[in-house]
């Protein structure tokens, strides 16, 4: 049971990073990334591939974040000038293309079989149990660092500029903000965080395959951010842990009588979809709503 809880908490931390990533793009600057899972997959594969040829894990994580940024550039260079719904469509397509590439480029990704035997840092020295605890600590620490950094960013003038773009692009541009650049930078940073989450996932599971990166994960993260509070980093973190806990709790429903396993799975997904729609409808600010700082009085 303790092992299981450690596992859930680590996965929760990885989802928290994904939620922080989405919250930066969607909650802060207003860019909807419906292909978040694609960036997550790019990071996971990038780190798995480079650590397999001898790069240390820290290097793999850096490569994963850079790969996330490159992927972010690919999807944004054509779309950021346009209305935001184009980005939603393109990002959704991007995640699909990542899956297609991962399935087909066997020389790079080993296709549907996936990459196994990914380096798990310090597992040899710490043993299985020790590794699990160490990794939980590592992921949690990174969540805290990223959360703190994004909170600082939120409160900084730069963060306010990002939020002004979300609220009214034309006004922000009129006030002299370089809207394109702000959007571009925020999306790239958000993609880097998703890549980081991917790398942490790969080195935790020690195995990645295209099946790990279903479009459903993006919806879980949207639910996490919406439930926690769009635009507030702590809300995203809280929402991510809550969604993972909810998903795991409903796993026990699999023993329901009269229902096939596929029906139980369908019911869980209906529940996820309905929760997202209903929170958007009834409590769009989430459990921990964004705090709008009062304007400072000019002396």
């Amino acid at each position, binding site marked *: 049971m303790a092992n299981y809880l450690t596992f859930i908490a680590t996965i929760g931390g990885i989802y928290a990073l994904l939620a922080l990533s989405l919250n930066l793009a969607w909650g802060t600057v207003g860019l909807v990334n419906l292909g978040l899972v694609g960036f997550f997959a790019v990071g996971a594969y990038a780190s798995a591939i480079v650590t397999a040829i001898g790069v240390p894990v820290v290097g793999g994580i850096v490569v994963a974040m850079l790969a996330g940024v490159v992927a972010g550039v690919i999807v944004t260079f054509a779309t950021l000038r346009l209305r935001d719904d184009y980005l939603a469509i393109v990002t959704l397509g991007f995640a*699909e293309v990542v899956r297609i590439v991962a399935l087909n480029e066997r020389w790079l990704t080993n296709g549907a079989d996936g990459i196994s035997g990914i380096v798990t840092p310090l597992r040899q020295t710490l043993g299985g149990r020790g590794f699990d605890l160490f990794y939980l600590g590592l992921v949690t620490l990174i969540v805290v660092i990223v959360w703190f950094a994004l909170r600082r960013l939120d409160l900084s003038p730069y963060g306010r500029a990002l939020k002004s773009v979300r609220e009214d692009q034309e006004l922000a541009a009129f006030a002299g903000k370089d809207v394109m650049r702000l959007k571009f930078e925020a999306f790239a940073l958000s993609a880097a965080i998703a890549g980081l989450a991917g790398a942490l996932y790969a080195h935790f599971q020690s195995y990645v395959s295209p099946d790990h990166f279903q479009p459903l994960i993006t919806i879980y993260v949207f639910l996490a951010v919406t439930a926690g509070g769009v635009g507030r980093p702590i809300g995203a973190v809280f929402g991510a842990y809550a969604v993972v806990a909810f998903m795991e709790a409903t796993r026990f429903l699999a023993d329901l009588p009269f229902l096939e396993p596929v029906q139980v799975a369908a019911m869980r997904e209906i529940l996820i979809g309905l929760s*997202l729609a209903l929170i*958007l409808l009834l409590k769009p600010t989430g459990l921990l709503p964004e705090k709008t700082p009062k304007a400072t009085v000019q002396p």
Partner: protein
Amino acid sequence: MLSAILQALLNGLMTGALIAIPAIGFSAIFAVLRYPSFAIAGYITIGAFAGWTLNVSFGLSMEVALVGAALVAALAAVATEQTIISRLRPSGALTAAIGSIAMNLVLENIVRFFYGNDLRGYDVPLVPDVRFWGLRVGMQQIETLIISIIVMAGVFLFLTRTRFGRAMRAVADNADLARLKGIDPRKVSFVAVALGGALAGLGGVLLGADTSIDPLTGFRILLTVFAAAVLGGLGSIPGAVVGALSIGIAEELSLLVLPATYRGAVGFVAILVILTFRPRGLLGERAL
């Protein structure tokens, strides 16, 4: 080589005609309600399974299956819109889009709950392909093409010759001006969503008759439908047709040089290219 290219063009035309139906549905919803509906995938899947139930479980003809699928999918679309998405639209197009992706998950899993994940095929007679000039075309493809042309003609007549159709175009063109003229935007939205859902449902049956169906049928075709709509110009109905034909042909031509598994990526690349060079699409964003 030449005959391979001609065959690819012919196949592309057939695929394009099939994609055009749900793409027109997507564009009709976008033109009037101004949000990209990801739930169109769910409407396609629901239509495909409604048609399958009529065709296989009840042994009815394809014509009945088509009409039934259109009705059921239109009903699903209207119910989704009225209960959830219409209430999200005041918060902006992106919120409505996210709501539609959530509702897509719900619709897809309602189908999964009742039908499971198995692949199912329509009960269509196996007829040998028609051959001419060294080219080959399946009877089912010809039927799909004819049905698509009839449906498209119907949609164009509806939009140009009926009061509701004209009202829809007026709202798409300028919603405020249309309201001043006494057009009730709620009625028009209702018709647009019902039309969009019905077309998606028809597309689902045509897809099912062409290959086979499962709960992910709609989601798998979604990117291609989006590509068609973006290529033609978001919200433009003739654009959706032109975009669908272009995507169909591009997909088939790409198969000459790429492995078939990359077919799904063609739509994505097409979207990126068109947005880079001609962001308003081939025909611009006017509804009709």
